[in-house]
C-alpha cells in the first residue's frame, strides 16, 4: 500500500477534500438562493404566464444564455477582478466561490424554470380559481408541486459544481482539483491524481444517490 502510493500525503488530501466540500457547500447554497428566485422570475415572465413581461424575460433569458455559453475556465479568468472586489482574494476557497456561483446560477435557474413548467397548468388554474394571489400560487402551489423537479435540479447543479471546483484548481482555487493538477499533472505523481479522481467520483456518486432518494421521497405521483 505504502509502496504503491509513495507520493501521497494523506493529511494534504484530507485538507483538499474539506476545501472541495466547503467550495461545493458554499457555492451550492448561494446558487440556490439566487437561482431559485431567478428561475421563478423566468417562469412567471415568460409568454402566456401570470406576469408575462416579454422585455424582462428577454433580458434575463439572454444574460442567462450568455453566461452559460462562456466556458467555465474563461469565466474564472474573467471573474478575477470581481472576486477580488467581493472577497479580497482570488485564491483559495473564498476566492473560488463567487465564480462558481456565477457559473452555476443561470444553469440552475433554467432547470428551475423547466421544473415549474412541468407543473400541470390545471393546478395553477384551480389555485387561481380559489382566489389565490400570484405570490400564493408560487409559494403554495407551484413550488410544492415542482419540489421533486427542483431537488433533481439541485442534484445536477451540485454535480456540475463538483467538476467546476476541480477546474478552479487551475488558478489555485484549492481543493481536490488543485491537488490533482499540481501533483498529478505538473509533477507526474500519477498516484495522487488517481486518489483525487477516485475521491471526486465517490463524491459525485454520493450526491447523485442522495438526490435520487430525496426526489423519490418528495414524489407523490
Amino acid at each position, binding site marked *: 500500500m505504502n509502496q504503491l502510493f509513495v507520493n501521497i500525503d494523506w493529511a494534504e488530501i484530507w485538507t483538499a477534500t474539506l476545501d472541495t466540500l466547503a467550495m461545493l457547500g458554499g457555492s451550492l447554497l448561494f446558487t440556490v438562493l439566487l437561482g431559485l428566485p431567478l428561475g421563478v422570475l423566468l417562469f412567471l415572465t415568460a409568454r402566456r404566464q401570470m406576469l408575462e413581461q416579454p422585455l424582462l424575460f428577454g433580458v434575463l433569458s439572454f444574460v442567462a444564455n450568455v453566461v452559460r455559453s462562456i466556458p467555465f475556465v474563461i469565466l474564472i479568468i474573467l471573474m478575477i477582478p470581481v472576486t477580488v472586489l467581493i472577497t479580497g482574494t482570488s485564491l483559495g476557497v473564498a476566492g473560488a466561490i463567487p465564480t462558481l456561483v456565477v457559473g452555476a446560477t443561470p444553469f440552475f435557474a433554467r432547470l428551475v424554470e423547466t421544473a415549474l413548467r412541468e407543473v400541470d397548468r390545471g393546478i395553477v388554474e384551480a389555485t387561481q380559481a380559489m*382566489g389565490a394571489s400570484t405570490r400564493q400560487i408560487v409559494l*403554495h402551489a407551484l413550488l410544492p408541486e415542482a419540489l421533486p423537479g427542483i431537488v433533481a435540479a439541485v442534484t445536477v447543479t451540485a454535480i456540475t459544481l463538483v467538476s467546476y471546483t476541480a477546474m478552479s484548481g487551475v488558478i489555485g482555487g484549492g481543493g481536490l482539483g488543485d491537488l490533482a493538477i499540481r501533483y498529478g499533472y505538473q509533477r507526474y505523481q500519477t498516484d495522487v491524481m488517481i486518489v483525487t479522481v477516485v475521491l471526486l467520483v465517490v463524491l459525485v456518486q454520493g450526491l447523485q444517490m442522495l438526490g435520487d432518494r430525496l426526489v423519490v421521497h418528495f414524489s407523490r405521483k
Partner: protein
Amino acid sequence: MIRFQNIHKSYLVAGKDVPALAGIDFEIAAGEVFGIIGHSGAGKSTLVRLINLLERPTQGQVLIDGRDITALPDAGLRDLRRGIGMIFQHFNLLSSKTVAENVAFPLKLAGLRDAPAIKARVAALLARVGLTEHADKYPAQLSGGQKQRVGIARALATEPSILLCDEATSALDPQTTRSVLRLLAEINRELGLTIVIITHEMDVVRTVCDRVAVLDAGRVVELGPVAEVFLHPQHPTTRRFVLEAEHVDEGEQVDDYAHVPGRVVRLTFKGDATYAPVLGDVARNTGIDFSILAGRIDRIKESPYGQLTVAFTGDGVDAALQQLAARRITVEVLRP
C-alpha cells in the same frame, strides 16, 4: 344570480381574431342547476370561465347579483373567486398534498389560521363527500371518482354560493358519473347553491339540471327547462344531442315504420301521467288499435316522463288524439 350581458369573446390566434363566443345573453337563477351543453369547441369552457373571470370577455359584462364583475379590482376579484367553487375534468388536485390538505387549501389561501376550525371544517366536508377514511392519502392513491369527490369537497370549503363544473364527469365511468351527479344534486338541495354544469352528454343534463342552454359555435341556440328542451328539441344541434342520448341514429327512425300501417304519432307523457293507464283507456273509449313502435320511460331530474312512438289504426283515431291531448299528453304526428 348570474347574468351574461351581450358577451363576445375572441382569441388572437396567429394574428387573427377567432371568435369563441358571439353574443351570449342569458341569466342563471340563484339556486338552480343549470346545464350548458355543446360539442367540442362550442365555447362551453370559455363561457363558464367567464363566471370567475379565468377568462375575460372581449365585449359585454358578466353580472353576479347585479354587480358587474368585469369591473372589479384585483382584490375584489380574489374575494369574488372565494365565493365561487370550481371542479374540473382532470380534478386538478395538488399531488404534493394529502386529501385533507387539498380540502384545507382554499381555507389557508383565504387566510384562515385557526387550525382546529380548519380541521373540523375539513372533517365535515370529507364526511359529506364520503371520504373520511381517505383523509391522509395522496391524490395518486385515489380512483377517479374519489378524486372528483375531493375536488367537490375542496370547491365547497369556502362555502361558495356558486359551483362551476367543467366536464366534471367526463373522465369517469357511467356508474361513478351517476354517483358524482347524485352528490351534486344533494349539495344543490341541501346547501341551495347555484350549480353550473358544462357537459357534452345529454344524460348528465337529464339527471341533474333544471334548465339547459345548448351552445353551438359560440351561440346559445336553445335554452329552457330540461324537460322542454329534451322532449321537444327545436334546433338541429339539440336534436342530435337527444338522439345521441337515446342511442338512435338519425334517419333510422321513420324509415323503419314504412311497412307499419296506420297513423304514426309520438306521445310525450310527463309527471304522473307517465304511470297512468292512459293509452289503454283511450283505446277502449274510442275503439281504436295501437301498436308501440318505440319508446322509453325515464326520469328528468326527479320527475318521470315517457315518450312513445305509436301507430294508431281504426276509425276513432282523431277522437283518440283529442282525448290524449285533453289528458295533457303532447301529441306529435310523425306520419299522417
